[in-house]
């Protein structure tokens, strides 16, 4: 039966226990209060960080690109090393790890660390490990994550690499201190906080470990890049570079270029290659100074797809194409896109100031009768110059004179694409204000008169002060085909940023695709490069570009391709720095990439036709 007395007896027992506890606490908080603060102040707790395993990186097919392997590392507890026992331990280390030099061993024993690294035990026999741990309590084994880039050079610019953090990075990334490694470039940098994980801790009181926290691994990253497409892109671009070297007598070896494949529907990046590249694994094990300088001199660390700034040449003409159709601005005397205009190979015109100028097209004898389609197809400069003249005459020196620049910016030129990669460059779209600014900040670069009609004529064909990155160009073409200027991304889970929206009608898109289609077909500038495909080229489109450079630098070779006109899926942009004519070098490189995307048999990159 229930016994109320016993229950109350229990409560009394509780009460006595409580009195006992409170007495102890009272003692602690009164009598021992003073001595406690002393003990606390003298207490030296030290932290030793255990790096967290970084998240791994996978390509579109789930293939691993960057992995993290935990490898057992032997550490020695320096707090337990005394003058008496140091020589013993020195011998033990020498005996077990004969590969260590005297200098390295000296470093261990001179170190002021709590724990000092001795050796990576991943290839050491289990017996040896066990022996060391069992017999000597100064040794401790910690699993340290090691980064490995499985595809070596293939993703050097997209994935990036790791390095020891500098002061800024310590401040910026809170896990950098414990991991002692930080993403220096590429996705490793952009997603540093996501990939890094939280380092673990060992808390030392003197030589004793009194508490520990396990490291928490970072999150994995899944990319839209496809390793196979990336491989083909790199091969093709390399073949293009070799071809350029063979074909032109350049003072310097031609070795710089970039190629990007962008998925039109999603805006995901399917491949992104920049050459020259490097092996990011070399940074893991430490790169030699000589090798670093060599790579640096070749600008191998630049991702030209987002950092290479090139005048776009004729691939920029689509901006004027879009402007012409939207604003109904055509060469003087023409009323629509189908009215023809006689290109005689040069354009002479006068300005308000009375000066007279003659501009010569790349084709000396002229293109004959051309409408807007022909102007794109044959890359007729005169047609576009005439549009520029028209803009200049109608809007010059008014608020509306920068209409071409405004259209450019809507497509993302001179703005960030907001790709999920660090250190993206934006390039320049010149206008009157910029020239005025340059007159002060960079005297000698621009004329005393400032912004003139000739500058606008240069701009409309992608020449002069304008610079763009290959990714900007790819994204601009995507914007024209979808109406949405959105951030292209590598991480499939990245949040897309809408940079801008434009009005493009379905009619416009089909005009544009049809006109791009003429470029790779008979009579178009890229016809020769694509002729190897025979009938299959009928559905492909593109635009060539050949941009002149200042000095004796060879032209920049451009090609923007669309894999299919009836069902456009990919935009392929290729740039070969000093690669000469776009139709000769960049076009066949893109052609080979398109062959892969359409699952046709691959044929080598062969010299096309020199146009422009």
């Amino acid at each position: 039966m229930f016994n109320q007395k016993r229950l109350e007896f229990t409560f009394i027992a509780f009460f006595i226990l409580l009195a006992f506890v409170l007495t102890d606490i009272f003692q602690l908080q009164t009598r021992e209060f003073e001595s406690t603060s002393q003990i606390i102040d003298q207490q030296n707790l030290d932290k030793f960080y255990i790096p967290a395993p970084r998240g791994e990186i996978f390509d579109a097919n789930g293939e691993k690109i960057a992995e993290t392997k935990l490898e057992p590392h032997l550490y020695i507890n320096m707090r337990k090393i005394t003058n008496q026992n140091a020589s013993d331990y020195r011998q033990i280390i020498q005996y077990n790890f004969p590969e260590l030099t005297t200098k390295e061993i000296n470093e261990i024993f001179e170190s002021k660390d709590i724990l000092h690294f001795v050796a990576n035990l991943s290839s050491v026999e289990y017996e040896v490990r066990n022996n060391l741990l069992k017999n000597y309590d100064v040794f401790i084994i910690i699993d340290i994550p090691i980064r490995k880039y499985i595809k070596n050079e293939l993703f050097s610019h997209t994935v990036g690499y790791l390095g020891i953090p500098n002061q800024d990075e310590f401040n910026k990334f809170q896990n950098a201190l414990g991991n002692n490694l930080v993403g220096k470039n590429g996705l490793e940098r952009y997603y540093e906080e996501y990939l890094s994980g939280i380092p673990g801790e060992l808390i030392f009181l003197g030589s004793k470990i009194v508490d520990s926290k396990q490291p928490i691994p970072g999150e994995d990253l899944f990319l839209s890049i496809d390793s196979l497409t990336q491989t083909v892109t790199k091969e093709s671009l390399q073949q293009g570079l070799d071809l350029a070297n063979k074909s032109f007598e350049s003072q310097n070896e031609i070795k710089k270029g970039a190629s990007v494949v962008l998925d039109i529907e999603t805006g995901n990046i399917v491949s992104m290659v920049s050459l020259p590249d490097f092996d990011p694994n070399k940074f893991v094990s430490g790169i030699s100074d000589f090798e670093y300088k060599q790579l640096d001199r070749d600008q191998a660390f630049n991702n030209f797809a987002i950092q290479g700034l090139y005048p776009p040449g004729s691939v920029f003409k689509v901006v004027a194409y879009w402007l012409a159709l939207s604003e109904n601005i055509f060469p003087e005397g023409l009323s629509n896109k189908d009215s023809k205009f006689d290109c005689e190979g040069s354009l002479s015109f006068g300005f308000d100031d009375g000066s007279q100028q003659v501009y010569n097209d790349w084709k000396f004898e002229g293109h004959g009768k051309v409408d807007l389609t022909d102007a794109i197809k044959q890359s007729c400069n005169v047609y576009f110059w005439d549009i520029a003249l028209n803009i200049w005459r109608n809007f010059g020196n008014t608020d509306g004179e920068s209409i071409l620049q405004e259209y450019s910016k809507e497509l993302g030129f001179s703005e960030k694409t907001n790709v999920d990669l660090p250190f993206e460059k934006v390039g320049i779209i010149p206008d009157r204000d910029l020239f005025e600014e340059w007159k002060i900040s960079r005297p000698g670069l621009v004329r005393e008169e400032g912004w003139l009609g000739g500058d606008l004529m240069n701009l409309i064909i992608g020449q002069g002060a304008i610079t763009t990155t290959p990714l900007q160009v790819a994204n601009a073409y995507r914007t024209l085909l979808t109406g949405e200027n959105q951030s292209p991304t590598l991480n499939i889970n990245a949040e897309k940023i809408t940079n801008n929206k434009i009005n493009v009608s379905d009619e416009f898109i089909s005009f544009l695709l049809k006109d791009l289609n003429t470029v790779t077909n008979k009579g178009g500038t890229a016809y020769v490069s694509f002729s190897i495909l025979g009938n299959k080229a009928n559905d492909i489109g593109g635009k060539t570009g050949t941009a002149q450079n200042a000095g004796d630098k060879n032209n920049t070779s451009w090609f923007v391709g669309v894999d299919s006109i009836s069902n456009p899926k990919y935009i392929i942009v290729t740039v070969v720095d000093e690669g000469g004519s776009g139709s000769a070098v960049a076009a066949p490189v893109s052609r080979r990439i398109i062959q892969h995307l359409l699952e046709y048999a691959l044929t080598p990159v062969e010299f096309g036709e020199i146009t422009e």
Partner: protein
Amino acid sequence: MINRKITILGPEGTNLYILLQFMIFSVISWFTLFSSIESIEFETSNILTRQIVFSLVGLIVFFLTTYLSIENLYNLINALFLLSISVLIGLLFTTPILGVRRWYDLEPVGLPIFIQPSEFSKIVLVLFIAKILSQKSNKLIAISGVLINLFLIFIQPDFGTTMLLLIVTSLMFFVSDIKLRIAVSGLLVFFLSFFILLEFNLLGDYQISRITDFFSGEDFSQRQSRLSISSGGLFGIYFSESQISEVFVPVQTTDFIFSLFSRNFGFFGGLLLTSLWIVFFFRVNRIIKRTEIVFEKYLLSGLLILLGAQIFINLFTILGFIPLTGIPFPLLSLGGSSIFSTAIIFGLINRVFIENNIVV
């Protein structure tokens, strides 16, 4: 049946005192945790945010428990007990976390929390024993059920909870007028088997190191927690300007939260907190005397013993009187499972109050 129309809160009414007590303890916990965080940001990783969410969900759990009438509860006990045993057996098939099989990880179903079933099975055990004791039938089968329950928790291994449940079981039998001779011999058997298991090395390394560390007299966290309590002085550092250096105490927000509380609110804070609990015990004891139903008497005593034993084991641990146990301080420690289980206890007590028509 008594006519219950009193519905101040909840469908069947709520005893305002019990509700208030639950909320006061929760708020004390928030203030304590507030002192240990660096920034006030609403994110799931922030311990204060987590605790506030846990407390509010705990409040819902409290009200939900109040729905269940004691009569229905009584009929459900056997089923609950079987469920509890199955869930504990299920734990044997999980992957160990930190060397012990004690939690279900809810990450795969999208919740960033771990569930510790033993937190709930201890309530079910109290219900089960209360039912055994209030019946006149043969108790042997029922007692073997209790032993199985204890054994399943013991092999997780969870030394602390096993000790807790051993104490609760013993005390519940003690108040049932059992012959003292039997009670003492039962306890002896328990302790004997514990040391036999220890002898045959059936405990995990983790448990052993906790125990041996204690006997070698140098458990770091307990020494640190004593320093932390001591540094609070009479009034604590929460409202004072004096900057006494911080003391590092491992797991200070969960098992060792009383050391953080004492550091912040000093001796008088501790006195206030324990006084609140004493008042609570007095209040509930009055109902135990008043109710006519034997099951309710056993149930309330069992729940009070469970709460009291948890508090003492927790305090003894952080003061270093006994080895580390991992028993949280009810409603003060950070942790969802502990809060929810205490909310259920409060809800059950509330229900008994309501059925006895005591509302304020």
